[in-house]
């Protein structure tokens, strides 16, 4: 049976009846949102993929608890966020970060590759340096501010969905995003980037 035009609720109903293809379609539809939420929480692609996979498995086991009050995506993102936070708190991940701290380098190389090229070599170098400083400032934010900023800027979620994931009201989420920007700006200005053109 085709699942292209089937709603999430119907797919959930079929998955509850033991249809793995229906759940596979749900995975295909929401894997990006789940993965990026995990990436925002963990900052590592490998950890984010593990957390996203665990989130789908947990969601499959808890399909009976989905009542349809919220959308399936919101319900799934809540599970994914909790799984990512559990990963973030786990001691094994801390150990892995201590042993193989190459996630930061991996992220920096990605940023360097995707950075916008300036008109001159000097401008390009300055732009790359600015982006590195911005990333450092974002990583040094408190988890509440950083999570809100990254989730908001990922482009995958509405503020309502972010509020549901983080368990905070809509106004609080908006304030956190604004405050995160202000703190990053202040840190950049402390490092002399206020006058950069």
């Amino acid at each position, binding site marked *: 049976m085709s699942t292209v035009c089937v709603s999430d609720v119907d797919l959930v109903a079929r998955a509850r009846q033991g249809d*793995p293809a229906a*759940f*596979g379609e749900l*995975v*295909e539809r929401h*894997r*990006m949102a789940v*993965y*990026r939420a995990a*990436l*925002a929480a963990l*900052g590592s*692609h490998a950890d*984010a*993929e593990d957390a*996203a*996979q665990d989130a*789908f*498995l947990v969601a*499959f*086991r808890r399909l009976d608890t989905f009542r349809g009050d919220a959308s399936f995506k919101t319900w799934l993102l809540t599970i994914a966020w909790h799984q990512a936070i559990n990963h973030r708190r786990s001691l094994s991940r801390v150990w892995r970060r201590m042993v193989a701290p190459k996630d930061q380098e991996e*992220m920096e190389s*990605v*940023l360097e590759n*995707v950075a916008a090229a300036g008109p001159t070599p000097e401008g390009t170098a300055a732009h790359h340096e*600015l*982006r590195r400083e*911005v*990333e450092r400032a*974002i990583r040094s934010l408190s988890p509440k501010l950083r999570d809100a*900023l*990254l*989730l*908001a*800027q*990922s*482009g*995958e979620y509405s503020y309502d969905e972010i509020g549901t994931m983080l368990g905070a009201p809509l106004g609080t989420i908006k304030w956190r995003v604004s405050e995160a*920007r202000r703190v*990053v*700006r202040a840190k*950049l200005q402390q490092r002399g*980037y*206020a*006058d*950069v*053109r």
Partner: protein
Amino acid sequence: MSDERLDRVIDDVARQMTAGQPSSDFRARVIAGLDRRPHRVWRSLWIAAPLGTLAAAILVILVARGFSTSAPHRMQRATVDAPKREERVGGQLRDRGPERAALRPNSPTATAPSPAAPTPDTTTVRLPADATYDGPRGTRVAAAGRRQDPSGGAAAEVAALAPPPLEVLPLGVEAIGVAALPTDSIAVTQLDAVAPMSIDPLPTHEARPTGGANDEPVEHRP
């Protein structure tokens, strides 16, 4: 740099930090994970918990054995090892009879004492400071040197020279028979009533009686 431009850079960097997509086989791996046992974490915990408990128990035992090398344990070991020694005093073989017989009930020493091994006594043998004895493996050791061994040798010697435990028979004491005391009441006779006594007053101007030691005439001088 204006705040708006900085905000654009911040938003752009934040977007890049969450950019990316899962691997191409992500869906297949999730579907494959559905077939696995759902509680693999708990299953691993059920396996790890007993192993951890066992490791902790072994650690506790090792630590306890490390502490048990103190004096009481050495004394106990010396008590067990002591009967194996034979001490030669004055060129005569002395066998630590009771202890040895107790540990080796089938040995000839326990059933019929040989002439070479006299009847075991329980007296304490005090060796002089310069006495020597045959140590284990036929070595001759000075008694004074044994006292200088701080690692349990003295304790072993003390344990070896200790007399066997005394057998104390239960004391059979008969109960003391006590006759019952007479319980008759004590009869007290009533005293006679005392009759009133009449006393006559003494004469006031009566002469003093004579014949006393102070009957000398009193001279009155003017």
